[in-house]
């Protein structure tokens, strides 16, 4: 989505009410972020938004740290910037691609199912928890030592893409199909329009 270099747009300060609702949206999308939310989004910090092409909005903390971007205007999915993912990798659901797929993802290609179903890829285990955890158990999800998420992820959910043999995440995007279906079908696109390392959003100059 951000394959081309981005020109930084104009920044505008957010009202504190908008900031609050954004914080709520974040916590409902990423319950695991709850213990860190005051570090990610300090109550006193000033949050700015920047308009990007294709109806995307980037949220920047204190004019220096890009935090999240939002697709399709207000109400769209809130997706973390990769720098934030690198800071709090344990807070976001992950899938892993095999080594061969890395270079394609890093040049902006759509992530296809074989990169996940092969030996080096990691999808949630077969006996993983159902997609929707019951109320109050949102914190009961994590990544196991093999790199598999403990819960099936559903379509449209934001997901962090790790890579075989690497410790840092290489991309983040929303699932075009649920992980269950990926396993069943084994082909077709999985994550379209991801934000990946070295793309325009990664290189954007925020200050």
């Amino acid at each position: 989505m951000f394959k081309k270099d981005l020109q930084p747009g104009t920044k505008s300060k957010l009202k504190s009410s908008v900031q609050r609702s954004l914080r709520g949206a974040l916590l409902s999308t990423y319950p695991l972020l709850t213990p860190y939310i005051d570090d990610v989004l300090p109550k006193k910090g000033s949050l700015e938004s920047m308009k990007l092409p294709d109806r995307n909005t980037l949220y920047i903390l204190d004019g220096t740290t890009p935090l999240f971007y939002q697709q399709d205007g207000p109400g769209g999915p809130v997706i973390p910037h990769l720098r934030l993912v690198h800071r709090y990798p344990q807070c976001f659901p992950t899938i892993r691609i095999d080594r061969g797929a890395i270079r394609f993802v890093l040049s902006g290609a759509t992530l296809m199912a074989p990169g996940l179903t092969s030996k080096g890829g990691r999808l949630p285990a077969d006996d993983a928890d159902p997609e929707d955890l019951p109320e109050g158990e949102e914190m009961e999800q994590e990544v196991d030592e093999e790199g598999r998420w403990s819960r099936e992820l559903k379509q449209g959910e934001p997901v962090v893409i790790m890579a075989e043999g690497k410790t840092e995440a290489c991309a983040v995007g929303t699932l075009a199909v649920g992980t269950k279906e990926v396993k069943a079908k084994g082909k077709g696109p999985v994550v379209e329009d991801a934000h990946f390392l070295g793309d325009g959003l990664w290189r954007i100059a925020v200050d």
Partner: protein
Amino acid sequence: MADSEQGDRPSEGRHVIYCGVCTLPPEYCEYGGTVKKCQEWLEANQPEMYAKIWSPEVLEAATAALSVDAQKRAARDAQKKAAKAEAAEAKQNEKLASSTITIKRIERNKKKFVTAVFGLEAFGLDLKKVAKDLGKKFATGSSVTKVPSGGEEIVVQGDVSEELEEFLLEKYKDIPGENIELVDDKKKKKAAAAAAT
């Protein structure tokens, strides 16, 4: 207003080192296209990490996992990418070398002058910021104006052409001195009058 729960605040999050050349985490440098430079940078700045990522054993393990065919393809791809990055850099350098900055002294009113600077954006400078700096430095008005021929220039009030050149050279080291050109633009009343009629 002291924070009552300051004691058990969770940590600031992990701090990740990014490559100074391609800005990616060093383990992804191999996909950036500037592998050689990244390697040199990492070796100089983060020797520990360098040993972890670029040691022969690790590299061997990495390539062993791929089939021969895939290896070849990856190598070809990497080569192409590197060539592309190199070409882009060469082009950029050439552009830098051939672009000139014109400092023009324009007569306003016999004894009054303004100084116009054209061509700064070729060196990746933000005109607005530079204009502000110039205004501060010379304590005069300084603004960014559009030129009819397209593009933008900075207009500084007063005759500051010589000092301006020095200032630019000192502040922005990557501007070569021979690329700055001083021009004197006298208002020719007769010529202007002739053109008008």
